[in-house]
């Protein structure tokens, strides 16, 4: 099965922040392999280093030490421009605050990753509409973020994350601002989409209930991996 192939590998990852005189060690020494198609939950309390790890994985920050590799790309060492091209191609993001651009309609927001790739308006908006229909927003195509509820905005966010069929999707507390019913809808949707195309999901959360949607749960504490649990009942 293709799931056996690691898509992300982390070697001796260390991240320090200097805050004036003090140095805070956010990540101590992380070694991790994430398989293709895996739905991974990075779990931890605030200050455990889970957000830092996500930033490292997504190439948002450079590590102090160590390497992060996604596919064949050493993304911890890419230049900003190469990183942008890499994100266009292989990464998707789902944010806690949805982060839709307020000046754009749902369709335009969802089409953004394709716009950055230089795909023409007709093609990308067609793809965006299809995607919005899949997340159940077929009736909200021309609505602005302000005109939509939190759940609807996050569904648009999901559509945006999946539109370019990225290999890896990062979701940072995707349901942090939503009620439990919507949370369930959203999480089901994310996992369904990911399983369909064998996409990897990196889910960052402090909510233990999220773990239910994951294949593998990594618990972080004080910048170290405390537990790494795989669900064996999933084939």
């Amino acid at each position: 099965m293709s799931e056996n192939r690691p898509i992300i590998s982390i070697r001796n990852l260390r991240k320090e922040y200097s805050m004036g005189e003090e140095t805070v060690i956010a990540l101590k020494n992380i070694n991790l392999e994430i398989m293709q198609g895996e739905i991974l939950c990075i779990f931890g309390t605030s200050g455990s280093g889970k957000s830092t790890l996500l930033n490292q994985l997504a190439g948002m920050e450079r590590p102090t030490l160590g390497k992060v590799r996604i596919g064949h790309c050493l993304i911890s060492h890419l230049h900003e421009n190469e990183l942008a091209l890499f994100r266009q191609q292989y990464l998707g993001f789902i944010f806690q605050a949805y982060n839709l651009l307020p000046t754009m309609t749902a369709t335009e927001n969802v089409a953004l990753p394709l716009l950055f790739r230089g795909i023409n308006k007709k093609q990308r908006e067609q793809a965006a509409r299809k995607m919005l229909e899949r997340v159940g927003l077929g009736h909200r195509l021309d609505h602005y973020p302000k005109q939509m509820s939190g759940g609807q905005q996050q569904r648009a966010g999901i559509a945006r994350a999946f539109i370019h069929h990225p290999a890896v999707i990062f979701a940072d507390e995707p349901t942090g601002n939503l009620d439990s019913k919507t949370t369930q809808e959203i999480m089901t949707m994310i996992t369904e989409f990911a399983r369909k195309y064998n996409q990897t999901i990196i889910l960052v959360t402090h909510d233990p209930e999220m773990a239910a949607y994951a294949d593998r749960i990594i618990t972080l504490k004080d910048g170290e991996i405390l537990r790494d649990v795989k669900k064996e009942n999933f084939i």
Partner: protein
Amino acid sequence: MRWHDLLGIVLQNLQRHRSRVFLTTLGVVIGCCSVVIMISMGIGMKEAQKQMLAQMGDLTLIQVSPLSQGKKAAQLTDQTIELFRQLDHVEAASAKLTSDAVELQLVTQNDQRYRSEYISIIGLSKEALPALGYQAKEGKPLLSAPFSILGGRYFAYSFTDSLRPESSNRIDLFSALYKEEKGSLPEPFFDPMKTPLTLTVISSDGHPLFTQKITVSGILEEDHGKYETFDGILMDIKDLQQLLDKANPGKSKKNTYTQAIVKVRGIEDVAAVEQKITHMGFRTSSMESIRKPMEKEAQQKQMMLGGLGAISLFVAALGIMNTMIMSITERTREIGIMKALGCRVRDIRTIFLTEAGLIGLLGGIIGCFLSLILSFLMNLTAAHQPGLLNQFQETPWIENTPAALSIIPFWLLLFAIVFSVLIGILSGFYPANRAVKISALEAIKSE
């Protein structure tokens, strides 16, 4: 990213903060306007000077005379005139002869009723005549027939009517000129174009020596720089020389002249030609010596005016910078999102530079329109108050200066727009670089 998608994002951003963009643009409009108006006033000033100088005389004419009468000094002869003619940038050259050595009288040929005494004729080479810029009011400004003349504009008024009593035998030219201003110039006694004349050469003791039949081939348009066009008489230099030789047969035929005129093709070459002629050992005079310092002064004034305008454009640039920094601070999160979604750094920079450039462009275009309107109004006001114009341009001694207070040539508009866009883009650089430095992390941070 495709350029029109980029532009789409830019327009969306500009539209979002309409009032802020409007105010910033207004700054550029005022800046652009002041630059254009200031420069246009400088151009108007220069133009007025040019016209003023042209009224004082042809700017491309050089008067040449020998340095002294000494035998060793360079003499003006037909050969030297030919040398002048062959100089670079010279259009024509001619010796200038006056009939002042002899007394001359003109009489209407058929009835001898009208006569003009103590006249003075100027002789110029008829070949050079077209280049020297004489305009004919009637007939042609050429001397094709032998012993033909060109009369000045008011040449016919110098004739007296021998059949009338002395108190009323002539038309007073100055009252005639006054009447002309009111629109009714009294007719001269006869039409010189249709009346053959007889020229009488009178000896120094008052006896007529001989006569010569004369035809008038044209009446010249008055030209302030050439007094012979007022009431003088022009004749081909060879004809005049022949008359003078006949009147003074004893004098040796040295064939030297006391004056010559050199016509240069363009104003810009006058100085060079003048210098060459001076090197040949002649004294020269032209409007150049007046024009140069005036031009310099006008240039200085123009620079000063333009500088004043530029200051307000600079203030506008600060306004653009401020607006852009503000909008970047507000859009930090959005920029982060765009980066996270794979927007390239150079696209983000382009977006902000384009936004700043568009504000410049918009301000420039509106500024140009406003300048055109303002310029029109200024000229309208100035036309109703000629004193204002003259006072400003410091040429109150020239009447009815027709130049405008503000002249906006097409290149100035183009320059103003390009300059505004450049100012916009330049003031966008610093904010754009700040935008580029915003990390994608900003997007992930939940507030």
